[in-house]
């Protein structure tokens, strides 16, 4: 899991009205903890996971954790 694709720059937090910044986002799965730099709203904590990340590298990592 690496940096966000460029398309995410068009997104902003609708409730806070602020642009997203790249911050470290923590994830947990199958007893494992991970940190991934992702765009997020630093004031309310809303994060942005693009489709290709969710269906690509995240899905692959989930599968590996389920069946190493």
């Amino acid at each position, binding site marked *: 899991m690496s940096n966000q694709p460029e398309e995410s720059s*068009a997104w902003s937090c609708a409730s806070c009205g602020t642009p997203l910044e790249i911050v470290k986002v923590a994830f947990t*799965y199958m007893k494992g903890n991970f940190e991934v730099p992702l765009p997020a709203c630093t004031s309310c904590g809303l994060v942005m996971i693009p*489709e290709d990340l*969710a269906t690509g590298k995240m899905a692959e990592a989930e599968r590996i954790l389920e*069946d190493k």
Partner: protein
Amino acid sequence: MEKDELQQWENKCIQEEPPECTATCPIHVDARLFVKEMARGDVDAAFQVLARTMPFPGILGRICDHPCERRCKRDQVEAPIAIGLLERRCVENTTTRARIQPLARRDKRVAVLGGGFAGLCAAWDLLKKGFRVTIVEAGGLLGGSLLEYPADILPPDVVREEIAVLETLGGEFRYGAVLDEAAFARLRSEFDAIFMDREAMAGCDLPLTRDDSGEIVIDPATGATGEDDVFAGGGTRFSSAFSPVTEALHGRKGALSIERFIQNVQLSTGRENEGPFSTRLFTSIAEIEPVPRIIPTAGDAGYSSEEALAEAGRCIQCECMECVKVCLYLERFEGYPKKYARQIFNNEYVMHGRAHTKNQFVNSCSTCGLCETVCPNDFYMGDLCLQARRTMNERKFMPASFHEFALSDMAHANGDSFALLRHEPGGEKSAWLYFPSCQLCATSPLPVLTSYRYLREKLAGGVGIMLGCCGAPAFWAGREDLFKASIAKLRQQWDEMGSPKVITACSTCRSLFTERIPEMETQSIWEVMEDIGLPVGASSLAERLTGSTVSVADPCITRKDPQTKESVRRIIKGLDFVVEELPLSGEKPECCGFGGLMFNANPGLARDVIAHRAVKAGTSPPSTVTAPQGWFRTRLRESADTVYYHTKVSDNDYIAYCAMCRDNLAAAGKRTAHLLELVFPDHDGTDPAGRGWISWSERRNNRSLVRDAVLAEHGEKGEAQMEEYENIKLSISDEVRRRIDDRRILENDIRQVIHQAEETGKRLKNADTGHFLAYQQSGNVTFWVEYSPADNGYTIHNAYSHRMQIAGIKP
């Protein structure tokens, strides 16, 4: 799985058993591998294969009497592989020598009396074992019968060079020895053990136990004589023709017995497979094309290098793989059942599940049973996998993702949106109970309702109805807790109805009931229809399909149920169709990818499995079928590099009688109708085989539709509570609908995300498109929805999900 269970499983799979050539060879040369190397043109590698087993490969390779050829499978096609001629070509042309690495020298001395081939072979093996060996020969030359071969077959130089190896290994020689009784006694006191070559010692009258005809008594299993320290062998020429490879076996046997005698170990244990034995390996020759055996153009001079290549190329490399040939699942994981059983055992027993090495494998089997049908020993992978799944659940290392969607679908079918139990409207008892199945109601609600009305019209004594799930998903998931509870509830409800005769419309439900509730009498709807007759108007359908010739897609669960298969065919013929059988009908239907919950644990594999049944080899699936995704190991391979065969997909429309087969074949682009849709067609003229794929959301709506319609006949209304979010109107294009359905995202999952985002304002906005993006974790899954407001609702542009949980942003 316990260790003895593993052994039982392993013993069932015969793939690792030796081929006929190796089993028949007295010294078990790996002739299959030898011929394979020869077919690759690698003479040196082939020679090393011989040298691993053969004593004096330069001699034996030239003159072996090759009993292996008599049992070669090719002989059943046209003629055996000329293994003897290939060995000769090999040893005459190799540029390498046998690499002999003797064990550490031991301070034990063995005398070999007589330098015939058996004696020489005993000396070869004994020197390799580290013994100090002296060959005592009455004459002046070693070799015995070897010296009688023509020089162009076995040149004397070769014999000398090969025997010289014994000297290199430290062997000592005594020539011209007198071998009378006194000398024999001296040798026995000088040496720890003696091997006697019967051929070379034929003239000597030694004091050993003899039978009535005066022959020295020798135990054929060990070479032991009447004296503990004396072993004997060889002399094949006295009973039949001189057999070099049998002489080699006798020498080898004697050497092993001497080793055991000196170490004071039981002579006879574990020697059953010494010498020729019959192998359990099965090799099908059904599809082997005859290729004539190559006759050497140079006659006695043997094969040219091209001839040797061509002859070795005829070898079919015997192996079983019967199950792997017909199962994409078994093929995909690149092994065979014996190997898989070991891996599963290691995963759960040795590693206690920590390795997780076979988790997806164990959960990918459809449990269809085709392996058991084609296996010469009835190895059933499904049994092994279901057992392993139960263990994974008990020990709590089953990843939730493998079965969660299927189990939530089961919960839906048993929840207040579908589950129902009623006598027929206006009735108070039921002689019959219709169980149309949750999946048939999900895909064909109207034919279910029409058929229920028809059954009530034709059958006396009341026809009640039970809507719900039979528990198959829990069974397949290895969830014994859920499965047992579900069966117990079914049994109790059936009792409440007065134990009526159950009419099933799904073969899986019926098979589970038969097995788990044996006192429940069941009949398939097809058998019932045969008794009560088809409804009027059912037979006017042929014109709606592409033709009046159809093929029947049998579900895997009917593998051992010829009665249902015949019943279905009689009904189809009664509807004026002509049935053209598919290659895998009868006992060999494949699964559609739903069985065993393969579709949930391994969606990529399930898509490939159904594509194999639905899409002709060499053509592309229709564009509506999305490529396998979410399974990163998926490799779509063509038949060229796999044993997994491609069946012939028929151009006929298919008729299925399993709801999931219908839906999966249709989703893969194959025109398929469910038989119930033909017997109880819609009267608006629609094409029952043209209905196409159906989404998981529609399936749930259809179930509720059936329930509401049955309740309406009773004058009741569904009591299911509508959640607020369920009123949200969605507008979704066909493309997006298919994509999100492939991702197993329900429209209600989407509604919940939007509902929450709109309530809380927590959503992202895209400056370029004006779309919103919101997410919500529901259970173990986080759903993402990209949407924009539309008239009275929302347009859905995309939806996706992941299972990793967002813990929050780091400051």
